[in-house]
């Protein structure tokens, strides 16, 4: 927490603000992945286990990207019948425009929001104040893509951006309120994840005109310390991301950190950006440390993955991640 408040720390922390749950922890507690998203006790055990088993310096809930969409009426597929491990995805999207988006009156009991709330409280009971508890909520454009057909959303945002703007405005208020519920439950830091705003798909001009105003409004009202994360090619929009007002910006492996550091200056807190799939999940243990050190040399302030960890990270790669800083 000292780190995110801009205070001096003895070394860069090793943590994340996005989904991080790994199989060794799930297996230790006999947790089935498809169940962990709906049971607060299992969720807390899996999140807290990252610190207890590996020393990863945070506990973050939830793990999937469907909590807010489900609270807004989308139907989820948890893949209960699938052997092995798949992240839940949205099965049915019911929203076509801002007019038929219904914001639940009682957020504390909407969808799985109470599951996350209970998990945060359980983590606090279990971990005390030794470990920072993080949580995340999707940004308005990404969330719009979880409640409205993605293709339709993009087409509308290209051709009738004012209609998309109305939807984003409505979602923005909801997002702030969800963050506040998590803050009340005891979360310490808050990541706003706007993956859909990436320049891989949206032009920097569209990001600036359509998405940035809503992110700015949300970040002004949501709890702090706050982190704004966007995946993909973000170098063209990194200055706009910083102007949105988060305490830190988070980027993935496609971002050139050196360029980002140059643009944002020495005081900005930049998080990222080693590749959690190519390096941590699929890579060799010997390559994890160098990838982490490259991020730090490039200008990142912490050891922080560029996205969610894929749960089947080999134990030796997690160990390599945790020992990477010994070489610093």
């Amino acid at each position: 927490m000292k780190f995110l408040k801009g205070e001096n720390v003895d070394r860069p922390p090793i943590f994340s603000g996005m989904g991080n749950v790994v199989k060794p922890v799930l297996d230790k507690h006999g947790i089935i992945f498809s169940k962990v998203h709906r049971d607060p006790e299992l969720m807390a055990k899996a999140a807290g286990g990252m610190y207890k088993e590996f020393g990863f310096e945070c506990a973050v809930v939830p793990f999937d990207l469907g909590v807010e969409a489900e609270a807004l009426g989308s139907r989820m597929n948890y893949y209960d019948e699938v052997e092995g491990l798949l992240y839940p995805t949205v099965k049915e999207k019911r929203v076509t425009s801002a007019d038929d988006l219904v914001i639940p009156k009682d957020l504390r009991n909407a969808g799985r929001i109470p599951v996350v709330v209970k998990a945060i409280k359980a983590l606090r009971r279990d971990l005390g104040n030794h470990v920072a508890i993080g949580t995340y909520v999707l940004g308005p454009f990404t969330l719009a893509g979880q409640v409205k057909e993605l293709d339709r959303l993009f087409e509308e945002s290209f051709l009738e951006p004012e209609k998309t703007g109305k939807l984003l405005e409505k979602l923005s208020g909801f997002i702030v309120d969800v963050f506040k519920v998590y803050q009340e439950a005891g979360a310490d830091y808050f990541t706003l994840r706007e993956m859909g705003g990436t320049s891989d798909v949206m032009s920097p001009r569209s990001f600036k005109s359509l998405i940035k105003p809503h992110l700015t409004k949300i970040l002004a009202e949501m709890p702090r310390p706050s982190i704004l994360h966007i995946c993909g090619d973000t170098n063209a929009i990194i200055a706009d991301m910083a102007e949105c007002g988060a305490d830190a910006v988070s980027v993935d492996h496609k971002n050139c950190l050196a360029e980002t550091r140059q643009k944002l200056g020495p005081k900005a807190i930049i998080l990222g950006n080693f590749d959690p799939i190519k390096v941590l999940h699929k890579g060799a243990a010997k390559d994890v440390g160098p990838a982490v050190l490259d991020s730090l040399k490039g200008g990142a302030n912490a050891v922080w993955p560029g996205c969610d960890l894929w749960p089947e990270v080999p134990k030796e790669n997690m160990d390599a991640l945790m020992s990477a800083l010994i070489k610093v």
Partner: protein
Amino acid sequence: MKIVLIAGYLGSGKTTLIIALSKKLAGGGAKIAILVNDVGVVPVDGAVMQEYGLTVKDIGGGCICCQVAGNLMKTLDTLAANVRPDIVIIEPTGIAVPDAIRQTVALAARKNEVEMGHTIVLFDTSRAAKLLTYDTLKRLVSLQIRDATIIGLSKIDLVTAEEIEAASLAVREINPAAEVIGISTITGEGLLSLAGRIPDGAVAA
């Protein structure tokens, strides 16, 4: 297991083409699996699936992130272990950039006998002007075309020969290296030609 990607902007005819191609390839004896964003939107009934031995799975579209990439990788692992299809046809969302999917397939290839085949990007000739005029739309469509090894000019039954030629010139300007094939799933034009290229096409992932 050869992976063929059929991408293209919303409404370019991906799903219809995939069904038509799958039937042709399965009719030739190949075992086909189809990965789509949403099984519910694939207009294939159980009888057709059984007749042609098609396996259809969803890769859970929605937001763009590592979780979707991980799910795709895991689904390819499962297909390789349990179904062992000859060809897997992937239909991503209309806003997907093919290169990102190819990178995920390359990671799955480390564990399985997976070979990246053609990346077919469809370009709707009946909406050519719209797709390449609006600034924001043009950017995405161009990104998709740039990643193609074959560009399918779709819905050519709806346009004139001059319009096909103009569309062909426009896409070649973006990606001169790709092969360009005119396609109509209504008349069947181009389908045989396209299906013939799928089994042999091997491209570095």
